[in-house]
């Protein structure tokens, strides 16, 4: 339930999960092609880090749509998201109109939501961090804690294979003993251009619980991205959440005032 990187990635584009940063120097850099700086097998941790950087950039502005599908209903929301650095993100719902203006602000591990209907900013308490974010298959914690996949796990490169003419690295991530992660292990498939194609979550009995899959991969905002990703639990075949990137711009200059509670409440963007 925690921060899954992939998810992170998904949202990262959008939401700045606090993640990536720690292993890279301040001011995220564009990832180098994996092969170019490697002798021998590449470092799996760097690949993961690179995938997160790829998603997020130093800063980003993007427009997303999130579809939540349940056996008896489905709904789609359009959102705009700003991210900066590892810690800061702001997501605001554009449509449907009844949800318009709902916002989520994250800064470090903290999270606040605002709904114009109640006209209040609410800080999400730790007891609610495991609850669903906007009714989706992602939890609030997924949204705030992206970096965990880098610094709370040990990574192993399991396999390297060619697929559709591109190299795909299969990386297994096992959480550290004290990590705030419930999974037994996670497996990520990351292409050599740092696009995550699949992220699988296994429980501690090594049964697959849920999978994040990239359905469309293409170029957006000058980089290769998973344009559409689906999070699906193995036990509930009729229910999933899809996030699609409609537009994205990277490395834009974002003002400080964007990531403030007052901006969450009174949008001036």
């Amino acid at each position, binding site marked *: *339930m*925690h921060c899954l990187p992939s998810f992170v990635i998904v949202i990262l584009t959008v939401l700045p999960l606090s993640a990536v940063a720690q292993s890279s120097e301040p001011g995220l850099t564009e990832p180098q092609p994996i092969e170019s700086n490697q002798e021998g097998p590449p470092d799996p941790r760097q690949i993961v880090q690179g995938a997160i950087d790829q998603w997020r950039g130093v800063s980003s502005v993007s427009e997303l749509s999130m579809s939540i599908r349940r056996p008896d209903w489905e709904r789609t929301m359009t959102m705009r998201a700003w991210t900066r650095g590892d810690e800061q993100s702001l997501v605001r719902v554009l449509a449907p109109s009844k949800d318009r203006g709902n916002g989520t602000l994250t800064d470090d*591990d*903290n999270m606040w939501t605002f709904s114009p209907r109640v006209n209040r900013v609410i*800080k999400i*308490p*730790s*007891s609610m*961090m*495991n609850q669903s974010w906007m009714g989706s298959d992602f939890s609030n914690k997924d949204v705030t804690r992206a970096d965990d996949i880098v610094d709370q796990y040990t990574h192993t490169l399991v396999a390297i294979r060619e697929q559709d003419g591109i190299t795909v690295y299969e990386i297994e991530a096992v*959480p*550290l*003993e*004290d*990590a*705030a*992660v*419930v*999974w*037994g292990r996670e497996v990520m498939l990351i292409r050599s251009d740092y696009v995550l194609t699949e992220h699988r*979550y296994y*429980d*501690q009995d090594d049964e697959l*619980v849920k999978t994040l899959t990239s359905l469309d991969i293409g170029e957006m905002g000058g980089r290769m991205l998973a344009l559409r990703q689906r999070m699906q639990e193995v036990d509930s075949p009729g229910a999933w959440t899809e996030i699609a990137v409609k537009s994205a711009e990277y490395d834009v200059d974002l003002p400080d005032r964007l990531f403030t509670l007052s901006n969450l409440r009174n949008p001036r963007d």
Partner: protein
Amino acid sequence: MSGVLRISSALAWRNLWRNRRRTAIMLAAISVGAWAMIFLTALTQGMVNEMIRDGLSVLPGHVQVHHPDYRDDPSIANLIPVADGELEDRFDAAGFQDWSTRIRVPAVISSERETRGVTLLGIDPARERNFTFVDLETLDGRFLDGTEDRGIVIGRKLADTLETRTGKRVVVMSQDPDNELADRGFRVIGVYRANLPSYEEQFVLIGKRTAQQFLNVDDRVTEAIAIGDDFREVEPVLQEVRALMHGDPVTVNAWWDLDTYLGAMLPMMDGFVLVWVIVIFLALSFGLVNTLVMSVFERVREIGVMLALGMRPSAIRWQIVVESMLLLVFGLVIGNTLSFASTYAIRDGIDVSIVAEGMEMMGASARLVPDLTVDNVVLANVVVLVLGFFASLSPAWRASRYDPIEAITTVQ
């Protein structure tokens, strides 16, 4: 005069056995009544004791010290404003039967499948072993090793809900004093059983030192507790802890303040026993008065003759009252014996697991152990004797007021 009394008493004794069957029935009624008073009181008292003991077992500490705001808002922000090391020194020097300091905060625990709200206890296992509600005999896995143990011990029911077990990892989330999220993975090292399944769901235990690091509180705790010999006699311990904490901005409470429901149980129980005893006695008293009235009616001529021969009315009264008291005393002796015997027969408790769920709602466990207290036995006997005395006054008064001539000529 004492000669007259002796004669009256002898007459009373003999009168009692003139109608053996009636006396035997009355004795049986009094015995059963006394048995019901004492035995049922013992059962109820046993149940109340169990509730209080169970309640106190998860609230270990007859006397507890908290930050003044902790009871309204049991969060990690309301720490005792005295360092834990200092608290430990003070409590250690005071020589309580048992004492401990701990962290108790709300938290959220999650596995791959489920998330639940729980109460997180950061304890010193070496201290708490003596009085913890965790049943160490049936613990699956191991208990915490020390304050720095990195594992977590959870209840069986919680483990079922989370679909986890010994050896797997869970994540605990709470917050630190600055309201920042604190979360961390713990490996489940033990799954415990407790008297009440609801405790197994509510409490998870980790080492105190680990909890302090996890929650970012240095050397601080949320509560310090002391335990005395008996939960009924806590006042001396309370005074002593008050003295220990004198001058610090903390609140010191006894268990009846901390859990007012439990605290109300003891006085409520005493009131209940009194009402119960009186109700039974009222039913009994009709039989008693009726018996006395009948025996007086049967002896109107006899009483008339005694009065005519010069016996004083007071001696007649005495005779009737003694007759009544003898009846009651014998009935009580048999009733007490019966209730001691039946209490002894079930001294290990009776299994009420058929209604365990209902009992649990009241906070009592599935085993009912009677508790015969001297207070309750004395209360029942005194009520029967005193009220019995007053009940017998009316027939006695009537008997002493007969006009000898009318009484002698009464045709029976």
